[in-house]
């Protein structure tokens, strides 16, 4: 039997879950290994323009040359922009409310994006924060080896 034009619209459910293994490259590996082994944040700087990048990368996009100079940055820095998040989302690293912040780490020239889990209501731009690392046994060379930044 031919179904009528006004047949209720059907839908199909589906999901795409695609496994990947992203190689993080030489610069990224040195950065993540420093988080894991030393609980230190490292960056690299351009010998031409002097800019200090974090996360470190292979080359300076401005001068278009390789970055060869490595620098140890402070684990503390200043918040330059932030948002307190109120909606929930399955990929959030913690429960809301928490904050995302761009942090100018001591010694760096660019903002480093991470989370402030506790007391987001006390956050404002220009406040000082410091990186809190997971325990050594739990650190795996991952951006969330830094568990959070904490207001100093």
């Amino acid at each position, binding site marked *: 039997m031919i179904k009528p034009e006004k047949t209720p619209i059907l839908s199909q459910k589906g999901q795409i879950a695609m496994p990947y293994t992203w190689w993080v490259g030489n610069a990224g590996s040195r950065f993540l290994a420093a988080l894991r082994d030393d609980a230190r944040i490292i960056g690299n700087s351009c010998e031409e323009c002097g800019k200090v990048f974090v996360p470190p990368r292979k080359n300076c996009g401005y001068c278009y040359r390789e970055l060869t100079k490595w620098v140890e940055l402070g684990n503390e820095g200043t918040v330059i922009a932030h948002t307190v998040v109120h909606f929930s989302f399955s990929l959030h690293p913690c429960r809301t409310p928490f904050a995302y912040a761009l942090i100018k780490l001591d010694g760096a020239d660019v903002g480093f*994006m991470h989370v402030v889990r506790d007391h987001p209501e006390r956050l404002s731009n220009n406040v000082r924060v410091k990186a809190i690392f997971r325990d050594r046994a739990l650190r795996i060379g991952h*951006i969330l080896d830094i568990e959070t930044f904490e207001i100093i």
Partner: protein
Amino acid sequence: MDHIAIVGVAQTGYEAKIRNKTNYDLVYEVTKGVLDDAGLSLADIDNIVTVSNDFMDGRTISSMAVGEAAGGHDKNISTVEGDGTFGAFYGAMRVLGGFNTTLVVAHSKGSEGSLKHITNAMFDPVYHRLIGIEAISASAIQANSYMDRFGLSEESFAMVSVKNHQNGFNNPYAHMPLNLTVEDVMKSARIADPLKLLDCSPVSDGAAAIIIANEEYSRRAKTRPVWIKGIAHCVEEYFLGDRDLAVAKSLRQASRKAYEMAGISRPVDSIDVVELYDAFSYMEPLWLEGLGFCEEGRGPGMLKDGITLMSGKLPVNPSGGVLSSHALLVAGLARIIEATLQLRGEAGSRQIPEAKTALAHGINGPCGQSHCVWVLSSEQ
């Protein structure tokens, strides 16, 4: 630049869930529509640019699934993954490169996927995606940075939402016309500070198409041609922390190039109407600054002074803008379509009287990482 023109436009209505039409159906509908509008047949079209996003459509090489719906059988068909303004830019380049006509068609159905997951996936998989950032939170960081730099208020952003949702009532295609007060916006649910629910555009389903033609084919079309006088796009850094989010650097460069191409030295005096990509309320003033209509930090003042109202010297988003209808990828093409309708004098109750020069604008990437600027004119 050779004389090239937009000779046809079509768009679907924008809705939260278009259940009775697939992506294929939407593309077919606007392709038929744009040919009818131009008074051309498929035989007059010698190449096609489709605009789609694989994550949005939930399939790889999503362009391949809509080529037939776009009339692409036996034709040269190419694709752009990005906002429709960028697809149209590629289409214009193809006409400048020797094709007679390009049909550009964009579609997306935000109702089918999970926008937060999709926009999370535009960020770096090692450093940023794992902290759960997506388009709304990233934009909230930009809004915070913009407010902090120039001492701007949330109320000044709320005013944009009030204006554009109100303008949406004049646009029969709009998804979400709303009668709001600043207080309504300020009291709406906090999403990611300083953004509240009514500072954010809705997620819409929809499709749109345009035909770009060379001078010869613009005479064959039945419509009044709308001439492309200046087009440019420019991109800035990928990592948000590398950028100065309070200033639209790449927009400044793109608009400068487009004005130069169009022979415009004082945009605020030369342009009659603007359709820009206001995915969030704060974007309208920030992009107005990047477009050189005012000094940095003075964008909100343009609305306070009434300049960007329908009745003002420089109406911005008389269609209701992206705040009223946001089909991703399609929304930039809709800005070009709205600008075209204004210059054809066919914008109905949202018509700006005697509009001769219009600007359309689209963005791609987080927080307007890249911008595409179009200067259009009713005069050759």
